[in-house]
């Protein structure tokens, strides 16, 4: 009898659990794939006191080769629309006025912020990102001088989803050219909460007049317009305060030591300054040290780089160690010049993104806490930078003498 009752008790408990779990399905977050619309890129704009949020939605049937009834090749792979509101999340909630599906943000790849919105201030954007579970902080963030919506509407040839393509573009740039940093949301927020409360965000620009916003226009062999990475926007206290050009940003990357792989060209012969030799740097390290000089500060940067020779038009004999050493010195000079230009631009803009403040904080912590507030405005413009660059040329490529030299040897001019 006892055994029967226990057994009956077990069965009843299991059934009860089952019934309860069915009852709980409402709050379990179950959504089918055809109830969500995947957002691959979003844009933030600010106009007349309102936030305008734009979304780039992916149309899966148009992209995947397996769409039901065949993928319609005439259809664009994405669809863009915008909503506006007093707050960012408020604007997003208004999307249900015009969308048949719920917006799905976790697959969002990039977020494009227009210049106006950046000048207004981005703190509410960062707070919304941190607080919400479905927006990931690994998205890449970009600025743009045009409206964010136009950037989202622009298709990119060769790639299916423009949002993912732009994210891959900045990764590609960081790995191969290293002129602009790859700023993800969390990295931006970390730097803005760092010692100098300043950060730099790369900007996108549509070059050309006729933007590629339909698949008809992408059917040609050339593109009438393209999305390009251009400048570096400087953000301080959540607001945009200035711009660095591409070259200046490059110099800043050298000082920061964030060059993964890069190409440096410099003139190798003073008699022909227009002819440039090219070195590909594949490994570099930069050490920053802050030195107090009287009342001011000096940043001492030690850069060690290793590279391969890619192009060489001059006539020195590269089998001799002295010519190689001379070449290395010329490369080092060029890098030092780049770094100095970058530093000067940063000084002008009064935004320390080179890690100077961080170096001071590490070495002179007590003094740093005293001068934190005045650093960007007052002390940075009076600081100096000293560079010590050391380039090692590991390989000269697959030939030693330049072609010109071989020609002159062979009895030519």
């Amino acid at each position, binding site marked *: *009898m006892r055994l*029967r*009752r226990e*057994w*009956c008790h077990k069965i009843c408990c299991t059934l009860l659990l089952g019934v309860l*779990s*069915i009852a*709980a*399905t409402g709050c*379990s*977050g*179950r*959504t*089918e*794939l*055809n109830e*969500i619309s*995947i957002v*691959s890129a979003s844009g933030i704009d600010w106009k007349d006191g309102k936030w305008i949020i734009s979304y780039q939605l*992916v149309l*899966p*049937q148009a*992209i*995947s080769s*397996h*769409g*039901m009834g065949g*993928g319609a090749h005439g259809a664009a792979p994405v669809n863009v629309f915008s909503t506006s509101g007093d707050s960012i999340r408020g604007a997003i909630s208004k999307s249900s006025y015009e969308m048949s599906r719920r917006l*799905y943000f*976790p*697959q969002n*790849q990039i977020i494009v912020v227009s210049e106006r919105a950046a000048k207004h201030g981005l703190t509410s954007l960062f707070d919304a990102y941190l607080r919400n579970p*479905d927006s*990931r902080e690994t998205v890449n963030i970009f600025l743009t001088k045009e409206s964010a919506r136009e950037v989202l509407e622009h298709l990119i040839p060769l790639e299916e*989803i423009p949002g*993912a393509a732009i994210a891959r573009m900045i990764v590609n740039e960081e790995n191969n050219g290293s002129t602009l940093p790859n700023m993800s949301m969390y990295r931006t927020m970390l730097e803005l909460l760092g010692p100098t409360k300043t950060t730099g965000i790369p900007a996108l620009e549509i070059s050309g007049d006729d933007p590629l916003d339909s698949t008809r226009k992408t059917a040609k062999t050339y593109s009438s317009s393209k999305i390009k990475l251009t400048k570096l926007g400087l953000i301080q206290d959540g607001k945009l305060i200035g711009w660095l050009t591409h070259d200046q940003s490059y110099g800043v990357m050298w000082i920061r030591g964030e060059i993964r792989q890069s190409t440096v060209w410099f003139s190798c012969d003073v008699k022909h300054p227009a002819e440039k030799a090219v070195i590909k740097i594949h490994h570099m390290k930069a050490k920053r040290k802050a030195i107090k000089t009287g009342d001011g500060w000096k940043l001492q940067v030690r850069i060690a780089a290793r590279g391969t020779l890619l192009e060489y038009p001059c006539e020195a004999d590269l089998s001799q160690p002295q010519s190689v050493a001379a070449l290395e010195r010329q490369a080092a000079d060029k890098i030092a010049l780049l770094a100095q230009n970058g530093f000067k631009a940063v000084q002008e803009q009064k935004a320390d993104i080179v890690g100077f403040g961080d170096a001071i904080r590490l070495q002179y912590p007590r003094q740093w806490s005293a001068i934190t507030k005045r650093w960007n405005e007052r002390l940075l413009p009076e600081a100096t930078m000293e560079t010590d660059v050391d380039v090692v040329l590991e390989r000269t490529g697959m030939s030693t003498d330049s072609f010109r030299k071989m020609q002159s040897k062979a009895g030519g001019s």
Partner: protein
Amino acid sequence: MEQGGIERVFGKKKTKPYGQMPKQAGGKPEPLSPGIADNLRMLRDKLGNSSDFIIRTIRSDAMPGVEMAVAYIKGIVEEDAIHRDVIEPIMSWAAPPGQSSWIETLRQRVVTTGASGRTAMVEDALNRLLDGQCLIFTNGFREAVTADTSGGEQRSVSEPNTQTVIRGPQYSFTENISTNIGLLRRIIRTADFRMRSYTIGRRTRTTVAVLYMHHIADPAVVQEMEQRIKEIDIDGILESNYIEEFISDQTYTPFPTMMNTERPDTAASAMLDGQIIILVDGSPFCLIGPATFFHFFRSAEDNYQRFDISSFLRLLRYGAFVVSVLLPSLFIAITTFHQEMLPTPLLISLAAQREGIPFPALVEALLMELTFEVLREAGVRMPRAIGPAISIVGALVLGQSAVQAGLVSPAMVIVVSFTAISNFVTPQISMASASRLIRFTLMLLAGLLGIFGIMAGVLFLMIHMTGLRSFGVPYMAPFAPVYRQTWPDMLVRQPWWARVFRLVAVSGVNPHRQRGRKPRHQKG
């Protein structure tokens, strides 16, 4: 006694007597009568005038006045033996009729079969008759001599149907228990090979034999097994599964706790590991117990191939088992609850496939799984002539057309097919059946609660499995109670020169199998 409420509904019902069972031995035993005609008539009546009950009366010139009869049941005897070993010697026997110990002389000196005996009771005589022995009656004597002439048409030793190997012995057990024991004896030729047989089943009187190795198997487990077999009281035993269900530990679990095989080499290897074999007359499948979870993933061929490929295949089997249990549930859970876990190109591809599908993912998965189970069941019963038709129907009509009609998505078809195929990788069908059942439960849980539901189900399963016991041996040994020595052989196949220990969990008695010695070649 009045039972109230729940007890009434779930309480123990009064047991009704079931059917008309033959009287147990222990009712009044009937002796044979001295008159030969009476005996023969009694036997014929008890057999219901069966037309295959043959009586051969013998009158010998050498012994006039002596009336003898040989009775047997045609079909279960070897008729040549009767002619040669029973009737002929009797007919050429000359002995004075008044001789004392006539029966004994008949039994020991005349009948030339290997086994002979004598019987004085009707019940015993009937049983022997039905076992294939023949009875020799002499008028005037209360006892009959029996000669073991059992035989008849049997299936010869052939290749195994289910567990075939590429390299290794190619014969399997047959339905005759003596042949089977003989096959095992030919592999294990020591005196430690012990065997005990029982007769189970009131109407079938099936011989069930328990075999074990004397110094290796745990005597307590042997005793427990024999005790459980002795307690079986049933109408008839047709297959070893009847025994398995009776003697398994009473746990409501889909997991099998005893293995079965039709290969003698697998059975012999199990005996050497300390396991106990149960052979049932009438079935080529023998039972092996106690068995842990990891035993079910070992195949005979693992030991006949090199250890590196066997290890890889064994790991593959574990992986395939996990896939066959978890893959559909994971697919449902991730595509309906956790889309953020997928990389974007995959998500877009899946989303494109699901556009226009009328069913939610859970319903789709259940439909496809049930369809596959139907196909599988149909394939078992289908005559070989229309075999290709089923594969065409299954593949083209149900798979391809359903996808093109927009009823299911291609990804789901892939998931279901791969799951089904991985299900076949498990060597033991009983374990594969368990995974089929568990898969459905996990799919429902995944559809309700996503990965949380799957984890809850898996946790429940793990707790259940670690609590299972197979004849006292924990089901998840050597991992649940830890026996580190046998870990290598459970997960991968240890090379034979390294396998020093038997599976300690199963036999605690004699763990050392051999002196471990790594092969060394002579230098120089």
